[in-house]
């Protein structure tokens, strides 16, 4: 854990570095002191429920929001005092689309190239290159309004790359997309990493997507509660997830508590609990539980378990309870 806090040593300045970064909106502390370092070329993921402070942190790193405490440097520049230098070296793909539906795909990219002052001589070839990379060169003359959600997201990724940023920020790049398009987006991100020397900083609340990252930070209520490689974080949990289907769930839960001292609960219609070395535990379970077992499954810990281990709740439950607490929230954030 402790060595995971420091970015892999490359001898170069970190692509992203934050120290005690904080953001307060009135009485609400959206970000409560974040420390992290991301190495050049790394794919770094922010994982956490909606409202955990991921988007606020990204907004600070992208210079869209000023921090109320701490400091951060992106691509070697301070996000407050060297704002324009940061902006020249980052690419952004936001949660909500920021394309102009009334312009063609190519016009959207040309707008971006002009806005970023890309030399005219390379604008054309570069637009072609990034559009080919996301498979949209054939559709360059189509109005963006006619594109599907997945195509729009690919075009936004192409646009985010147009000016060869050193750090590409992807804020929930696959939210609202169907599973097939989601995996295609990841194929592009993966291809991109092999082609362009780029650091990717992304947020997601899809557990399975965090697996694509070299390292992830798990965020909850404005703090980083765990940071490391997905494997290290899962290994740290150290317990496997066992699910059993029984004739009498209530009796099984009671028996697990009284005979093995395990806390179990019904999840997804099965009695679920965590235990070290789950496979070795199964024979004892059958021998001693005293309640007929119909089926059993043992699973290695997932990032969901990691989240649970650090916060005491699942991501889904955290989102549900947050939505309860802040009914006005969804409309206030992300704009």
């Amino acid at each position, binding site marked *: 854990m402790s060595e995971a806090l420091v970015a892999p040593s490359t001898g170069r300045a970190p692509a992203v570095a934050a120290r005690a970064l904080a953001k307060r909106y009135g009485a609400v502390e959206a970000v409560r002191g974040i420390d992290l370092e991301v190495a050049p070329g790394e794919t770094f993921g922010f994982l956490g429920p909606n409202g955990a402070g991921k988007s606020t942190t990204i907004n600070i790193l992208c210079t869209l929001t000023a921090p109320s405490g701490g400091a951060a440097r992106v691509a070697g520049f301070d996000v407050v005092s060297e704002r324009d230098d940061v902006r020249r070296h980052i690419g952004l793909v936001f949660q909500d689309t*920021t394309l102009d539906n009334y*312009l063609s795909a190519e016009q959207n990219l040309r707008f971006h190239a002009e806005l970023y002052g890309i030399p005219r001589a390379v604008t054309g070839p570069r637009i072609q290159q990034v559009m080919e990379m996301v498979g949209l060169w054939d559709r360059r003359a189509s109005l963006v309004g006619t594109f599907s959600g997945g195509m729009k997201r690919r075009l936004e990724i192409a646009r985010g790359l147009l000016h060869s940023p050193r750090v590409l920020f992807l804020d929930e790049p696959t939210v609202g997309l*169907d599973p097939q398009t989601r995996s295609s987006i990841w194929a592009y991100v993966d291809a991109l990493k092999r082609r362009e020397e780029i650091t990717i900083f992304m947020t997601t609340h899809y557990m399975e997507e965090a697996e694509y990252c070299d390292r992830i930070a798990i965020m909850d209520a404005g703090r980083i509660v765990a940071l490391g490689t997905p494997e290290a974080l899962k290994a740290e949990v150290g317990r496997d997830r066992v699910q059993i289907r029984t004739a009498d769930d209530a009796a099984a839960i009671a028996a697990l508590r009284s005979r093995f001292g395990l806390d179990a609960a019904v999840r997804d219609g099965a009695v679920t609990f965590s235990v070290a070395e789950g496979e070795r535990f199964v024979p004892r379970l059958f021998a001693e539980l005293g309640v007929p077992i119909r089926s059993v499954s043992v699973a290695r810990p997932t990032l969901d378990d990691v989240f649970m281990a650090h916060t005491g709740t699942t991501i889904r439950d955290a989102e549900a309870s947050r939505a309860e607490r802040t009914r006005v929230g969804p409309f206030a954030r992300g704009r």
Partner: protein
Amino acid sequence: MSVTDFPVELPVPVPVPVQVPERSVRNDLRAVKIVWQRELIRFFRDKPRIVTALLQPMLYLFVFGTGMSSMVAGGRGDLKVFLFPGVMTMAVLFTSFFSAGSLVWDREFGFMREMLVAPVRRSAILVGKCAGGATAGTFQGVVVLAVAGLVGIRYTPSFVATVIGELVVVSFAITALGLALAVRIRAIQSFMALVQMLLMPLFFLSGALFPVAGLPGWLAVLTRLDPLTYAVDPLRRAVLAHAGGPLAATAQGVTWFGWTVPVPLELAVVALSAVAALAIAVTQFGKD
């Protein structure tokens, strides 16, 4: 969307090295230009909007103008010629205000963020927007000018040049005013409601439909406070002086305490209002 939409073998790209230059005046000007171009692409693509913004002025000119002519008939000349400058201003007013509304639109539909994170001055974005609205407004004014022949106004190069020159100043000012209103508004409906509330008073008090000379005191004061008055009057003086005849006598111009304000000063008032509105817009725009 199926998986076959994606090439299985991603093409090997020709490396195109790109570096974003440091911020400079030249790049800010490029930003102004591209924002301006985008406004124009969107304006000319939206044909229904071009037509609707012309419909109301045409109704005033041909229906109201013709209908009221019978009442005011008797020596003073054609009411349509008198209304013509007011109607031109009206076309500009609708178009330029609507263009300024694109700022709210961009914010609501996310495109604003694309502009806000770019390494350019925010004022460059607003100046580009203002130039776009001014161009669109001038275009609509020129479309109205094109029907001048139908109300019996002859075209001469100097007349057309004067009117277009004045239209540019007026359109720029109205867009700037619209931007100052739009800059802090987040929903397009709120902006539309605000415009509805302001548009008609501004228009009616500008003297677009009646001479501003010889009004009762309270109305005279209100018309002199309406910046649009100083936009309508230069256009009217140009049109009426050009039309000649008995109507030319009604082109007395706006007076301040009995002193006739000269056209350059009127245009200066309009231009100053534009600069002030744009300055307000720029300071408010940075506050997000």
